């Protein structure tokens, strides 16, 4: 994702760089322990440990697995596949059409919509589920009519279709920003030239969209769709409330219901395989076709002006995902929160620990962002081959469901605690263990952005600093870290929002008496105290919205530059 940078560092002309490099090469090298290599290895190993623990346990003894394969496995798999397929199928148009409209057309409300369309990102799927899962109750009179008119079977089918349809639409709307962001940046930047050429050649709007823009944007759209698929497969809260038994629900049930961790982990492996399989399928379908962006031209696309019915239509198309995925749920939560606060004399619900939640998220964010920058920098100091390996190891956790990372961290802290090392306090059930698990799960975010940032800075500035006698450490602190401020702030924002929303991992690992906004909201909703649950839910959303606005400014493709 392209990030608006502070002024680009002045790239030294190649000749100068060569001279400096040659000069650096003539300096006598003093052999000393490779501390940077050690740092990279230790961090990568720490992040890999929980994942390795999980993989090792896959082959363990399982009592429940055999009967699981015979009984519920098929159901879990089918439900997961159907739900993923439905949600992705709905999220694509919900993301692509508004992205196309805001980047190629001009209509009233376009500017504000173009950034508001990312707001659903701030709404965790489980919070949306609190709002939506009782909506089908309104349809009960109709269902009863179907039952009396057409019989029980028609009624059962209608009930199923209604629940699945609503859950899919809700998830698609809430997750649509992943597709929207990918599509918007593809349409405005990469495909600008193709789209304008198609227009010059006399293609109509629809034709330009179908024949040129969509195929050219395909890699970006697939990436967006993949995020949606992963989020759906990973979701625990929403499927729980809608009673759709997916693999992710099966993991919790198998682990806690029959206490069979090995069987639960095998389900998790299957879940990851499902997502990877879907991605591979897309690659296969894409075949040998290659789509390249013709020139990284950042001039904005000339937008055609829509008026009258067309403008209204465009506005409505953009409003749909925004309404379902943000405006309606937030309005509903706001109403509930108001009712609750008015009844309780505006006291926050008991058990709500705002400081704990924000403190943990902020602390982990700062530490992880700093560490990721250091890691990316250190990895760069170490040649090219192992660097790739280390970078992908450190980013592995992002592809693994939160519940599974939690199990891995539990295995690691349990093993360390059983050693009874002197001076080392117990790790299991501590804030430190939870923060570590967050780092394992989300390290990819600051890492990827730091890496991209360092790529942009390039080596000349850094080499100049080294040539002038600064140590790598001083160079990192004085040159790279300040220059990385842009990407790091963006990473910190994304990370902070993700940490505040995180549910399954936190549910499993939170220490005694420790509650985040997410766990408080989830437990209140589980007790069907929806009015009380609206307060922490809204706080999660609010904490997510503010950084998203900042992020949009940084992304710079929204209203401010468009």
């Amino acid at each position, binding site marked *: 994702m392209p990030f608006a940078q502070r002024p680009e560092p002045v790239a030294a002309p190649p000749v100068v760089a060569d001279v400096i490099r040659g000069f650096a090469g003539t300096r006598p090298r003093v052999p000393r322990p490779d501390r940077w290599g050690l740092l990279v290895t230790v961090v990568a190993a720490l992040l890999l440990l929980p994942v390795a623990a999980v993989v090792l346990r896959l082959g363990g003894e399982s009592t*429940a697995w055999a*009967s699981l394969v015979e*009984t*519920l496995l098929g159901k879990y798999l089918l439900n997961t596949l159907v739900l993923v397929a439905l949600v992705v199928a709905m999220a694509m148009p919900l993301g692509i059409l508004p992205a196309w409209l805001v980047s190629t057309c001009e209509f009233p409300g376009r500017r504000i919509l173009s950034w508001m369309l990312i707001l659903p990102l701030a709404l965790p799927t489980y919070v949306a589920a609190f709002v939506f*899962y009782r909506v089908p*109750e309104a349809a*009960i*009179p109709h269902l*009863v009519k179907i*039952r009396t008119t057409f019989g*029980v079977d028609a*009624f*059962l089918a209608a*009930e*199923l279709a209604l*629940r699945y349809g609503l859950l899919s639409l809700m998830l698609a709307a809430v997750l649509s920003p992943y597709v929207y962001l990918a599509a918007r940046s593809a349409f405005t930047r990469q495909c600008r030239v193709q789209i304008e050429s198609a227009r010059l050649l006399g293609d109509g709007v629809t034709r330009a969209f179908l024949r040129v823009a969509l195929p050219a944007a395909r890699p970006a759209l697939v990436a967006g769709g993949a995020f949606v698929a992963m989020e759906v497969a990973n979701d625990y809260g929403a499927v729980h*409330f*809608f*009673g759709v*038994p997916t693999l992710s629900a099966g993991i*919790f*049930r198998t682990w*806690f*219901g*029959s*206490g069979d961790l090995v069987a639960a982990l095998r389900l998790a492996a299957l879940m990851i395989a499902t997502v990877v399989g879907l991605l591979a399928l897309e690659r296969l379908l894409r075949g040998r076709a290659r789509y390249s962006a013709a020139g990284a031209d950042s001039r904005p696309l000339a937008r055609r002006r829509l008026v009258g019915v067309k403008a209204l239509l465009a506005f409505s198309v953009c409003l749909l995902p925004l309404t379902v995925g943000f405006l309606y749920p937030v309005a509903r939560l706001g109403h509930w929160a108001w*009712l*609750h606060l008015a*009844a309780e004399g505006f006291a926050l619900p*008991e*058990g709500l*620990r705002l*400081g*704990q939640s*924000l*403190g943990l998220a*902020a*602390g982990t964010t*700062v*530490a992880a962002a*700093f560490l990721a920058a250091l890691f990316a920098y250190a990895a760069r100091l170490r040649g090219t081959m192992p660097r790739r390996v280390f970078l992908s190891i450190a980013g592995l956790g992002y592809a693994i469901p939160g519940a599974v990372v939690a199990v891995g961290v*539990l295995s690691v802290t349990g093993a360390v605690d059983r050693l009874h090392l002197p001076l080392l306090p*117990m790790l*299991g*059930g501590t*804030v430190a263990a939870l923060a570590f698990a967050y780092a394992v799960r989300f390290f990819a975010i600051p890492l990827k952005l730091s890496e991209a940032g360092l790529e942009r800075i390039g080596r000349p500035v850094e080499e100049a600093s080294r040539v002038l006698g600064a140590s790598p450490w001083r160079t990192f*602190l*004085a040159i790279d*870290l*300040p220059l990385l401020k842009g990407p790091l702030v963006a990473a910190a924002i994304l990370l902070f929002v993700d940490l505040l929303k995180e549910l399954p991992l936190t*549910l499993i690992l*939170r220490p*005694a*008496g420790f509650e985040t906004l997410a766990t408080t909201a989830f*437990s209140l909703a*589980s*007790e*069907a*105290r929806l*009015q009380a649950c609206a307060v922490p839910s809204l706080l999660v959303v609010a904490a997510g919205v503010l950084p998203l606005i900042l992020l949009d400014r940084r992304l710079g493709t929204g209203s401010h530059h468009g």
Partner: protein
Amino acid sequence: MLSESMKPGHFLRRILAVFAVVSFTGLISASELTLYTQRHYEFDEKLHQLFSERTGISIVVVKAASDELMARLQSEADRTPADLFLTADGGGLDRAKKAGLLQPLPDPAIANAVPATLKDADHQWVALTMRARVLYYSPDRVKAGELSSYEALADPQWRGRLAVRSSSNAYNQSLMAALVEANGAEDAKAWAAAVRGNMVRPPQGGDRDQIRVVAAGLADVAIANTYYLGLLATSEDAQDREAAAKVKIHFPNQDGRGTHVNISGAGIVKASKKAGDAAKFLAFLLSNEVQEMIAENTFEYPVTTTAKRSELQKSWGDFKADAMPFSVLGERNAEAVRLFDESGWE
């Protein structure tokens, strides 16, 4: 060359300061008891406050499903912060005892007013409240004579008419364990498959949601615990209060072994070094005053012979309770889960 804010020391110090401040927020503790509890009732928070006011001992709560908490107690072993383990299910208490996670009460006399069937013979746990798992029905669509036992819900006449929550839930697992004990495994499995087949929708939500679905007219009969009727009738939500008015309770199996009852109870965690304070808390919960407060507020039945039921509870009627020991529910739990899996009841 470098501006003031870009100097390495300055930047690093700022980061470290922020990190240090946030890391230590909210980590300060005082004299307290840590509860690992499956109980999830708003009123419990008020009881904890009352206890703290009277004794100066504050209560820290970790809420989760009982299996989750047991897994945690086992992995934390002798370094657990937990002092008390509370479940909303007698079977869970017995499993915790058998797993060696509990210690005997320092003074068994605090549970003298609790009948022998509602506490452990070795004093490792004691019931705090009791509830019956009953049938809720819509009087408009079901005649009282049509309902008899849990077993009768397997009849095809109930197709598309039942609402029951997931079999992951401890209440259902204990009911299933009781059915296995009473009728044998094969029978119980066939029953679960038939009931699942009669459900109006795949299991979803909690007991409250099943009752709501009956009130709303989607299902005709739900299986749920007694106290939810009281909670709905006194809810802050007007829809809940309307729902409570639209359903009635039937106590099943009155002509046979009696209605399945379960308890919410507690034991002192073996590794706890605060057994004295923990026992104080249990004695507080078993006092007549608190037992009757619970009957009036969470609508669970009192467990002591001296405490009185609330008026609302009396209006639901008297019933014969199944006298099956809770140790049986604990022993049969794993089998019950397996049979549920095999029956297709997710």
